[in-house]
């Protein structure tokens, strides 16, 4: 299989799981689309990922609060150093210090450096200049990262953002505008350190920029987390992959969601491309597999009729600079029948991910209710979450839930709110509420 002659772009495969049978008058077609990329990424060397040259910008929060406790700043420096060490030779990179403004720390001239023994050493030396001071305006950091990454001809453009506090020194609209400006231009993983940051801000950044979000409650864990993140980036084989959905005349896409490895609603991210087709961004891909849940509403048809409800294709940019092309596709069908046994069967994949999406919502609503003092509402929602997590085998989420509620009966969803909950545990649950597990096949 090994192909040493040229960098290998991943091969994509698309599998559709659905129950295509609709009852008389039925209109909604649900399908889970599994996209798997293989054979790319990991073989990259010489400063390029498999897909071509890569650039990475690391944004480190240097607001005044990073000094309380000082371990946060020290952890951030160590993590950045570890990330720099993980960069492959030849990768373009920069380190940005962020507070109420964004400042390039290395290289100081506002361009990207090329990873090598010398630049790595210089970059690590410069981390001493990361000093806590001032406020937090994350939008300015993102715009600087965009300027840095946009100045070079790069195939993979990625950023890492570390924050410890709320985005207090710019308006939410300013952050929103920055995210809109950056969306589709680079991907970004976001991390919150400590417990003084806003979960929805960090998950919102990651989701808008198609990256991961997580909590690193203990600064000592930052270095390992940054190393893992950077290894993941180095494994990316191709960027700017989109999911194209064609639907027939009269059909309507109700939603398009990524449902594994985590829930990300892509419905509003559609860009129309051609007649009856639209594309949804999926970011960059290494060797990995993701699942998408698509619901299409089609015009009702007579019993015995069959139609194509949607055609799902994966669009990958041409490394040679030509037009992006579909590399793999799957068909979502609709067939009308009188047979109740056929129409009432729920596809196991669809059922599973419907449950996982409900699990994420239940956790979110439960925690919101708890914060607002609605104990009954919180108990009901978190109980339902415990039940769903147990039923679907989502052990990680079940474990996080058990730190917030006392589980009386997981199968029945009976729980009691814990009187005292560590803030880190609650934030971890909220940050990771969208993490899903796949169907046991």
């Amino acid at each position, binding site marked *: 299989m090994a192909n040493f002659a040229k960098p290998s772009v991943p091969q994509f495969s698309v599998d559709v799981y*659905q*129950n*295509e*049978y609709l009852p008389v008058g039925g209109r909604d077609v649900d399908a889970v689309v599994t996209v798997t990329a293989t054979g790319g990424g990991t073989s990259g060397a010489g400063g390029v990922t498999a897909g071509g040259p890569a650039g990475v910008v690391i944004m480190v929060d240097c607001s005044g609060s990073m000094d309380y406790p000082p371990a946060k700043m020290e952890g951030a420096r160590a993590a950045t150093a570890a990330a720099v060490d993980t960069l492959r030779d030849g990768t373009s990179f920069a380190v940005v210090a962020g507070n109420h403004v964004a400042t390039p720390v290395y290289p100081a001239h506002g361009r990207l450096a090329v990873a090598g023994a010398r630049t790595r050493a210089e970059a690590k030396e410069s981390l001493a200049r990361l000093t806590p001071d001032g406020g937090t305006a994350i939008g300015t950091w993102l715009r600087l990262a965009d300027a840095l990454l946009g100045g070079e001809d790069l195939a993979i453009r990625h950023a890492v953002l570390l924050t410890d506090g709320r985005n207090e020194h710019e308006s939410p609209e300013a952050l929103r505008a920055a995210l809109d400006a950056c969306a589709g231009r680079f991907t970004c993983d976001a991390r919150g350190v400590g417990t003084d940051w806003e979960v929805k801000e960090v998950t919102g950044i990651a989701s808008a920029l198609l990256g991961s979000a997580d909590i690193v409650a203990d600064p000592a864990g930052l270095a390992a987390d940054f190393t893992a993140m950077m290894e993941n980036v180095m494994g990316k084989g191709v960027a700017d992959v989109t999911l194209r959905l064609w*639907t*027939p*005349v*009269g*059909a309507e896409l109700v939603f398009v969601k990524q449902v594994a490895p985590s829930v990300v609603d892509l419905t509003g991210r559609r860009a129309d491309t051609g007649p*009856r087709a639209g594309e949804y961004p999926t970011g960059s891909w290494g060797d990995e597999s993701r699942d998408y849940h698509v619901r299409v509403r*089609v015009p009702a048809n007579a*019993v*015995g*009729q*069959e*139609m*194509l*409800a949607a*055609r799902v294709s994966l669009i990958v940019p041409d490394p040679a600079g030509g037009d992006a092309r579909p590399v793999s596709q799957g*068909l979502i*069908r609709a*067939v*009308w*029948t*009188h*047979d109740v*046994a*056929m129409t009432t069967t729920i596809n196991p994949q669809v059922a599973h991910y419907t449950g996982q999406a409900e699990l994420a919502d239940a956790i979110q609503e439960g925690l919101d209710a708890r914060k607002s003092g609605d104990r009954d509402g919180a108990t009901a929602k978190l109980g339902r979450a415990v039940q769903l997590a147990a039923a679907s085998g989502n052990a990680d989420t079940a474990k996080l839930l058990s730190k917030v509620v006392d589980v009386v009966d997981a199968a029945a969803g009976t729980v009691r709110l814990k009187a005292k909950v560590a803030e880190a545990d609650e934030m971890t649950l909220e940050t990771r509420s969208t993490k899903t597990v796949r169907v046991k096949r």
Partner: protein
Amino acid sequence: MSQKPQPPSHGLAVCPNPECAEPVDPRDRYCGACGHDLSATVELPAGQDRPTMPIAAPVWPEAPPREPGSLSTMTQHPGDLPGTDSGGRDLPTVPVGVGPGPAAGPVRTDGPVPPSGETVRGGGDFELAAPDPRAAVRAEPAPAAGEAAAEVPEGVCVACRAGRVDGDGYCENCGHAQPRERDHMERELGTVAAVSDRGLRHHRNEDAFAITESTLPGGRPATVAIVCDGVSSAHRPDEASAAAARAAGRVLGEALPRGTHPQQALHEAIVAAAEAVTALARTAGPDGDGADSLHGGNSPACTIVGSVVADGLLVVGWVGDSRAYWVPDDRSAPAARLTEDDSWAAQMVKAGLMNEEQAYADERAHAITGWLGADAYELEPHTAAFKPDRSGVVVVCTDGLWNYAEAADAMAAVVPADAALRPLHAARVLVGHALDGGGHDNITVALTPFAPPPAGAGSS
């Protein structure tokens, strides 16, 4: 199946169970001696739909001794059978009792289709004379089978007539699936014709047929018709029926010229068909649903019914609920059903546990108890040989047809009078009859005209 209410009295003097035959009271519903359901044997007034006789009483007479120099063994004349036709005269209804035991065995239901892939080419190891699928499509209310709908230009959707058809067979505009080759198939040879149609309620045709003309040693002609019905609740039923029909047609085409007795050849053909369907379970489908689990109960499966007309002999063989009927050219003579369904209803009736009305009203009625496939518990090919004394046609068909003409005289009533002269036309008429009735299932019918050997030629 329009079953009328039973008259209050069965009008019997003795129990119809030949093993019992004890006197019974006219008011009894069950025989006091053996418990036989007396209401099951009530004969309806002339002209009404006539229930099939309870199979618990196989009153099939002894076969005449084998004739030296003839191929035939165990030969029966349809007129040997009991029953009455719509005119109240004796009518054959029950074939040789070869069915399995009462309904203790495995059952599977022929429900709608599984989510597997595209249809495959139907047929046999010959070119199917399928019409242009675009010409065979039916615009809304279906015209009679075989009639072409309005022409739609090549590559343009037949549903919206606006979009082009993509490589997967769907319209690029409205998404509608386009007609497929198997949606409507017709084939005619000199002595046999067959028509298969998707029907109005199913999204694809899971039936298949094979018709061949062969020769016996000495050059006498033999005509073979095989019809198979894919079990919709199993994986890839369309492939199962195609494989079974092809295998059975091939085996008969090889065995008959070698001098194998037609009844034995048909038995071997059904066994070969079963092996072909079983082999499907070990191979991946075109849509990659993998080698089907042998344990999941979803292996590809189908029914089979076949007829061989050769040397003055009519042989039928079957597994499942596809049927063969005998319809004499002289309609004053009785028609007959020649097969006995491997179905839950038939077994209930046969065991005397229900009368036919009750059995067919039950939701399990159409569950079949015998089929070809990897998960069939035991293959029991049924065969029967007949030696009709007059000319007529043999109708082999799937339940998509006989659901609309269940009783033998009902079937005879819809077979055109000139069926023996124009078998393809007659097959189209029969398919049209099922479509007019609602076309709830795939419909496949093959017609073979039968003529007894000229007097003196048969040496009897």
